[in-house]
């Protein structure tokens, strides 16, 4: 693509990450387009919801006519296979490839190939450490910051400006875990309070999270707040089962966690829920099509964080008390005309496939 100057098209939807974000422009071409989604690992709820969202969005009347061929593959955690899949789609003459990278690095070759063949490559969610491709993501550091700001705010409203906090981290070595934790610690450091932080590794997994939180409570006693970034159902369960008082906490956007927030807010579980949305895939597909149509696009597109605090929860709107725990609630992005709510994807009865 050519590096051009901004502003880009539809900035409400494709908002640039920062002021100094570059802009790209590809040569305009005739639709409809061949688009592929190259997912990595598929064995967790988020990825499944993402794949379903992609499929549903490809059928959305707004873009259906613009897509001539649409394929989704999952490559597993193997970097070589994912690179191979992308390269394969380039060889097959696809116009755009949307992907969740299995590693933030290592895509130099396919980026070069995509450029040579004028293919639009759009990594999202796990983005790449490069500014050579157009990418779509939520700001993970900001998410960490908001987690911590919320918990500190609730605590200070209770008159606490120092104390003991439990941080429940995600998968070791993952950049999302790193960034969220970084954001959290920035805020804690800036707050000037005396915060003793105990970190445990919950792997974003309910069972593991519950176990390590229970252990931490058994060993360290009571905490004033919990800064979790995943596996939040397990964290809540651990609080309940150990009889730990309900304290302010942070967490992802699964339906189960929001149900718990709604239920236990009055007991003190004054939490914040911000999630990485599986709907990012839809925005990425939209961005890819927009780029193919010759529009000016920001290199790094920031999707607004879908925040909900305990006092903002409304049954049937941003959580569903009668639906399963595992799906991710936030999926609608009005500025982008993307309205694929969690329930419509994950709680459908089996006939609209």
């Amino acid at each position, binding site marked *: 693509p050519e590096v051009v100057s901004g502003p880009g098209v539809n900035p409400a939807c494709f908002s640039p990450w920062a002021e100094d974000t570059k802009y790209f422009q590809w040569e305009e071409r005739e639709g409809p387009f061949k688009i592929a989604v190259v997912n990595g690992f598929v064995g967790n709820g988020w990825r499944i919801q993402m794949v379903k969202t992609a499929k549903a969005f490809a059928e959305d009347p707004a873009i259906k006519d613009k897509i001539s061929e649409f394929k989704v593959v999952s490559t597993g955690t193997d*970097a*070589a296979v994912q690179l191979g899949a992308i390269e394969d789609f380039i060889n097959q003459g696809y116009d755009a490839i949307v992907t969740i990278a299995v590693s933030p690095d290592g895509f130099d070759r396919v980026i070069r190939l995509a450029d040579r063949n004028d293919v639009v490559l759009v990594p999202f969610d796990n983005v790449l450490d490069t500014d050579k491709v157009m990418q779509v993501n939520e700001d993970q550091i900001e998410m960490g910051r908001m987690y911590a700001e919320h918990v500190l705010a609730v605590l200070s409203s209770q008159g606490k400006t120092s104390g003991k906090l439990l941080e429940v981290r995600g998968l070791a070595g993952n950049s999302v875990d790193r960034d969220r934790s970084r954001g959290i610690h920035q805020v804690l450091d800036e707050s000037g309070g005396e915060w003793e932080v105990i970190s445990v590794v919950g792997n974003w997994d309910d069972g593991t999270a519950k176990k390590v939180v229970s252990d931490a409570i058994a060993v360290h006693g009571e905490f004033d707040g919990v800064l979790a970034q995943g596996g939040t159902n397990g964290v809540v369960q651990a609080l309940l089962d150990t009889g730990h008082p309900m304290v302010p906490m942070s967490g992802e956007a699964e339906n189960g966690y929001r149900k718990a927030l709604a239920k236990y807010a009055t007991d003190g579980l004054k939490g914040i829920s911000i999630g990485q949305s599986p709907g990012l895939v839809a925005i990425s597909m939209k961005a890819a099509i927009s780029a193919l149509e010759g529009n000016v696009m920001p290199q790094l597109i920031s999707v607004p964080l879908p925040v909900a605090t305990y006092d903002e929860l409304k049954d049937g709107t941003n959580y569903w008390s009668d639906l399963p725990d595992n799906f991710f609630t936030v999926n609608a992005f009005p500025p982008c005309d993307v309205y694929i709510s969690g329930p419509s994807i994950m709680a459908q009865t089996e006939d609209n496939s």
Partner: protein
Amino acid sequence: MNDYKKSLKLAIGQNMGFTVATVGLLLLWLLYNILHPGGFSSAVLIQNTNESVVIVFVAIAQTFPILLGGLDLSVGAVMTLANCVASALMSGSPIQILIGAIITLLTGTAFGFLNGMIVVYGRIQPIIATLATGSIAIGLALFIRPQPGGDVDGDLGWALTNDLYELVYTYGWWDADAAWFSPFAWIPVPLLIIIIVGFGIWLPFKKTVTGRTIYAVGSSESAAFMSGLPIERAKLTAFTMAGFFAACGGLYLAIQTSSGNADMTQAGSYTLNSIAAVVLGGTSLFGGVGGAIGSLVGALLLRMLSFYFRIMSIDPLLQPLIEGVVLLVAVSLGALRTLRTKNRLRLFR
């Protein structure tokens, strides 16, 4: 002539698994190229081989311990460790890069040697010893690369993951457009790497006494001992070779991705896939039968499966299921032989 035919028949009969796998691979590969819009082109071949190099190396690595009748559950982890080491060292001047590559290979080799020492002198079962050392390898990899990253020389990455033309062009060894060169220019470098490193080491190695001892130990350790074969040397060599080839895989992955990633799940899946590849290639898990070329074929077969998902329209959420079932069916095909065995005592080994 007649004798030649008889030899061939014997060889096929004695390597049934390998023969079936090879024929199967060829058929699947032909069909794939027919179905692929860009089939039978250098670009597709480059892509196919690029995707396969690492698993091929790791599968070759796994072959040695399996021939011995053991198993190396650390190959994926050692590959990852080498990948991280390479990502830290493979930049700078050509000499520095070369030294980096050598250190990477040495790291994996040394780790394999350590596995061998534990198995031989600690007399711990390989499967469980390497389960533990695999953990250690991943730990070390995480120390080196707590987060994915590193910058391996980009030109190198580009040159080694394309055809010969790009390699020559990138480094300007000679005129890449020379007429004499054009018949070879399309050959993918990764294919050459597999053939040169894999076959170049394996074929001679098989003809050494140590190589043959590995087979003998896998087939009957007591017979090997009674025959005065160097058993300990063979075991040490087998695990060292496993470390070396795993490191080759890690090194190539670093070149291919210009980075290192201490990814535990990826390491685990490489280990398990390597076992599947070795078995698909006709090597017996009991040891003594098979070889690295079979593992190469097995690894390619394993990869072939995912190639098909990209040229056919299959519901993405059904793909993992299909993949699992196909693997299950493929490994059960060997059972056909079992069901034909007329003497049930032969089933126990």
